[in-house]
C-alpha cells in the first residue's frame, strides 16, 4: 500500500483527491458525506456576501449518447449566511480532523473586506484558504471572481491583502478565461501566494434549443454565459497546469482542477506538476462514491510501479513539456497496421485519405482477403489513423530510426544564424 497522503504548501490530506469548491461542497452535510466516502479534502463552496441565485442553473453536454461530456453552470457563490457556513465548517473539521478543509473566499477587491473574511474563516479552524479569482459568471459582472482574476495587478494586490492577515496557506484559484494564465499565476506568486489552483470554469454557452430557440439553460426565456467544466475541458486545464509548472518564476505548488474523473486523470495532472487534484463534475455526475476507485486505482498504479508515495510522482513529466521549437525535427514515426488484429472497418483509410496524407491503401490479397497497408514512405506519423482506429493494437505508431542526429527548430535556426554570421566574417 503506497502512501497516498499529500502536503500541498503545508495543507495535509490523506489522499490527493479533494472536492472542488462547487455545489457538492455547499454544506456540512455534503462535505461530511464526502469525507465518509473517502475524499481527502474539500474546498468549501465559496464564502462571501450571500447572493441570490436563479432557477435553472446547470446544463450538460452529451456526446454520441454519452451523458455529461461537458457541464456548465450559472450558479453563484454560497447563498447561505456566512455564520451558518462557519458553524458547519467548525463541526465538520471537528468530526474529520485529518481531512483537509479549505475555505474558498470571494469578496470585493478591498483590503478591509479581505482582512475581515480571512480572520472570520480562520477562526473556525480551516486548513487553508482558496481565493476565488476564477468564477466567470454573475460575480464577475460585480467586479469579483474572474473580473479580478483577469487583471494581474488585482490578483497580486488581493493576494497580498489576504496574506497580510492569513495564518494558514493561501491558494489562488485562477481563471482560464485569459490569454496567458502564467501572467496571473506569476502575479499571485508576487503577491505571496502559497499555492495556485487551476482551472476555474471556462466561459460557455451550452446550447440552443432547436424547437424553442431558447438558450440552454434558460431562465424564463433568457440565458447568460456560464462556466464550463467536465471531461471535455481536461486537455485545456492540463496545459495550463503544465505551463505554470514549467515556468521558472512560478515555484509554488499547484492544485490541479479540470475534468478529472478517474485516478488516471489525477496521475496525469500530478505528473504534470499538480500536487493534488480537485474534482467536481465527476462527483456531480456519479456521487461521492467515485472516489473509492480513484484511491484504489492510484494505489495500485503506485504499487505496480514500485513508487512508495504519491508525492514522488509530482512533476515527473514537467521537463518533458517544452516549446515547439525544442522538438526534434528528425524524430520520425510511421503507422503500422497489424492485419491479424485489424477488423477492416477502413476508418484509418478514409481518415488518411480525406484528412491526412493519403498513405493507407485498401488492398486484396491473392486469396481475396481484404487488408489495409500503410505506404510508410508517405506516412508523416500524424497518428490520425491510430486515433480513429476502434480496436486496440490494430495500429502501432512505430519509431523509424533516424539517419540524422536530433535537431530542433531552435537549434537549426541558431546554426543557420551562426553560419550566416561566419559568412559575414569571412566576407
Amino acid at each position, binding site marked *: 500500500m503506497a502512501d497516498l497522503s499529500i502536503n500541498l504548501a503545508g495543507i495535509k490530506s490523506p489522499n490527493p483527491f479533494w472536492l472542488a469548491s462547487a455545489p457538492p461542497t455547499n454544506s456540512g452535510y455534503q462535505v461530511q458525506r464526502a469525507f465518509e466516502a473517502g475524499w481527502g479534502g474539500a474546498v468549501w463552496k465559496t464564502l462571501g456576501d450571500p447572493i441570490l441565485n436563479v432557477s435553472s442553473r446547470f446544463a450538460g453536454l452529451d456526446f*454520441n*449518447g*454519452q451523458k455529461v461530456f461537458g457541464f456548465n453552470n450559472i450558479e453563484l457563490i454560497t447563498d447561505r449566511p456566512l455564520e451558518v457556513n462557519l458553524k458547519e465548517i467548525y463541526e465538520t473539521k471537528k468530526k474529520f480532523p485529518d481531512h483537509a478543509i479549505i475555505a474558498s473566499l470571494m469578496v470585493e477587491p478591498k483590503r478591509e473586506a479581505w482582512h475581515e473574511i480571512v480572520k472570520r474563516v480562520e477562526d473556525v479552524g480551516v486548513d487553508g484558504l482558496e481565493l476565488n479569482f476564477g468564477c466567470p459568471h454573475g460575480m464577475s459582472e460585480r467586479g469579483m471572481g474572474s473580473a479580478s482574476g483577469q487583471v494581474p495587478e488585482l490578483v497580486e494586490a488581493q493576494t497580498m491583502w489576504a496574506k497580510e492577515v492569513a495564518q494558514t496557506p493561501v491558494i489562488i484559484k485562477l481563471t482560464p478565461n485569459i490569454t496567458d494564465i502564467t501572467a496571473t499565476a506569476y502575479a499571485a506568486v508576487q503577491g505571496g501566494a502559497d499555492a495556485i489552483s487551476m482551472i476555474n470554469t471556462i466561459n460557455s454557452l451550452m446550447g440552443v434549443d432547436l424547437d424553442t430557440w431558447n438558450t440552454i439553460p434558460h431562465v424564463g426565456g433568457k440565458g447568460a454565459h456560464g462556466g464550463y467544466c467536465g471531461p471535455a475541458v481536461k486537455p485545456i486545464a492540463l496545459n495550463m497546469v503544465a505551463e505554470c509548472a514549467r515556468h521558472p518564476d512560478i515555484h509554488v505548488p499547484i492544485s490541479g482542477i479540470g475534468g478529472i474523473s478517474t485516478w488516471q486523470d489525477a496521475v496525469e495532472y500530478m505528473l504534470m506538476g499538480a500536487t493534488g487534484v480537485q474534482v467536481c463534475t465527476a462527483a456531480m455526475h456519479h456521487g461521492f462514491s467515485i472516489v473509492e476507485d480513484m484511491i484504489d486505482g492510484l494505489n495500485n498504479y503506485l504499487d505496480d510501479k514500485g513508487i512508495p508515495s504519491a508525492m514522488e510522482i509530482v512533476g515527473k513529466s514537467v521537463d518533458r513539456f517544452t516549446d515547439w521549437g525544442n522538438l526534434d525535427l528528425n524524430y520520425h514515426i510511421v503507422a503500422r497496421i497489424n492485419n491479424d488484429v485489424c*477488423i*477492416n*472497418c*477502413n*476508418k484509418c*483509410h*478514409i481518415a488518411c485519405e480525406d484528412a491526412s496524407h493519403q498513405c493507407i491503401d*485498401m488492398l486484396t490479397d491473392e486469396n481475396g482477403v481484404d487488408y489495409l497497408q500503410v505506404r510508410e514512405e508517405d506516412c508523416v506519423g500524424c497518428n490520425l489513423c491510430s486515433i480513429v482506429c*476502434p*480496436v486496440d493494437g490494430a495500429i502501432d505508431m512505430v519509431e523509424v530510426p533516424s539517419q540524422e542526429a536530433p535537431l530542433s527548430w531552435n537549434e537549426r535556426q541558431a546554426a543557420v544564424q551562426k553560419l550566416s554570421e561566419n559568412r559575414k566574417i569571412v566576407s
Partner: protein
Amino acid sequence: MQSQQQRISTDNLESNFREVNPGLSPKAAIEEANRCLYCYDAPCIKACPTGINIPSFIKKIASGNLKGSARVIMEANPVGASCARVCPTEELCEGACVLNDASTPIMIGDLQRVATDWAIHNQQQLFQPGEYNGKNVAVVGGGPAGLSAARELARLGYKVTIFEAKEKAGGLDTFGIVSFRLPQDISLWEVEQVEQLGVNIRTRVQVGKDISAEDIVDGHDAVILAVGMGNVPMLGIEGEDLQGVYDAIEFVEETKRNGLRTDFVGKKVAVIGAGNTAIDAATCSVRLGAANVQMVYRRTEAEMTAYDFEYEFAKLDGVEFRWLTQPTRIIGDEHGRVKQLECVRMQLGEPDESGRRRPLPVEGSELTLEVDAVIKAIGQTRHTALIEAFGLDHEKGVVRIDQDTFQTSHPKVYAAGDVIFGRGQGEAMVVTAAEQGKQTAYAVHQQLTDSVTESA
C-alpha cells in the same frame, strides 16, 4: 429464456400472434446506433442484397434524423420495413459487421425497424412520383418484387398498374409470414407507400381469368411478371385428402385473415418439412393452442433450409423435431379425419443433385405418430400455367431470364422475384425479391428509354 408456457396463451390466442420482438427502446436504439463504427466501404452494405447504406441510416438515428434514416432504408429497399423484421440478418448485414469478432455485431435489423417504425407511426410519405413520361407498365403480382419494381417505375415517371390476385397487395409479406414476426400492417404500409406514388393496384384480379395475358401485354409498354410461387405440392402419399390435412401456405395465410381458428387448441400436429414455411406452420400451430407440434423431416438438422433464428424460435415455442423421418401414409378414422401419420426412419446416403445427402429409408423402421392434424410444407408449386399464358420459356416453372436485364423470352416481358427463383437463380428471400424488382424496373427504364432514343 421464456418457457413455452409463458410464451403461449391458450385462453387468448390473439395475444400469441402479436409481434414477439418488442423492438428497441428509444434509449437502446440510441446506444446501439452510437456503437456503430460508421465504417468506410462498409461490409454490411455489400452484404445487403439491396445495398442499403447501413452506416448512413444508423448515423441518422444517432443524430435524431429519423425521417432521413427511413428514407435511406426505403430508398434502397421498398420493403425495408418488412425486411427489418424478416431478413436473416445474421447471414447478411449483421453477419458481415466488423464488430463480430471485436465485440458483438450491431443490431442492424432492429435499428432498421426503429427508423421504419418511426416513418410508419408518423405517417411519412417518403418519395414522390416522377413526372409522367407517357409510358405504361404492368406489374403482375403485388408482392415484394412487384411492389419494388412498381415503386421505382413510378418514381421514374411511368404509369404503373399492379395486377394482384388477392384482396390485398404485399404478397408473402402480407399473407405468408406469420403475424408474430411480421404484423400485416407493416406490409400494408409499404403497399400504401407505393400506392401514394400513383401506382394503381388492381386487387382480386387473376390474370388468365379476369384479364388475359395477351391483353396485359398489348395494353402496356412493358410487363413485369412477379407472381412468386404457388401453394404446397402434393406429398403423393395415401390419405392426403383426409380432413385435417393442410397446406402450410394456406394455413399461415388464414391466420392473417379474419380471426384465428380455435380448433387447434389441445391438438397434436405434425408438420412435414423443415423450411421457412414449415417453421411458420409449426409455430403458428403452437400459437393456435396445439398441445404438441412435431416437425417431421426426412433429412437432418444440418440439411434443413430454415434459418438458425427460425429454428431457435421454434424450439423456444416448444416445437419438437423428428429428423430422418419420412411420412409414408396418413391414416384417417371412420369419419375421414386424420388420426395417425405413418412414417419410416431414414438414413443419409450419397449426395444428390442439390448437393445434400440423399435420404434413404431404413427397412423395417416404420413408426406411427398419433396426430390430429398434418400440415404439408415441402416446398411450393410453380405458376406454370400463367407463365405459359404469357408464352415465356421456363424450366419446370422457373422463368428463364437474361441475368442482366431480367428480360424473359418475350421482349416486352420481364420477370423478378420467386418466379425466377430456383435452378441456380438467386435466393428465395424477400430482400432478394425487392432488389430484383428494383433492378428490373431500371432494366425496363433502360430499354424503354433506349428505344425512344433510337426512334428519335
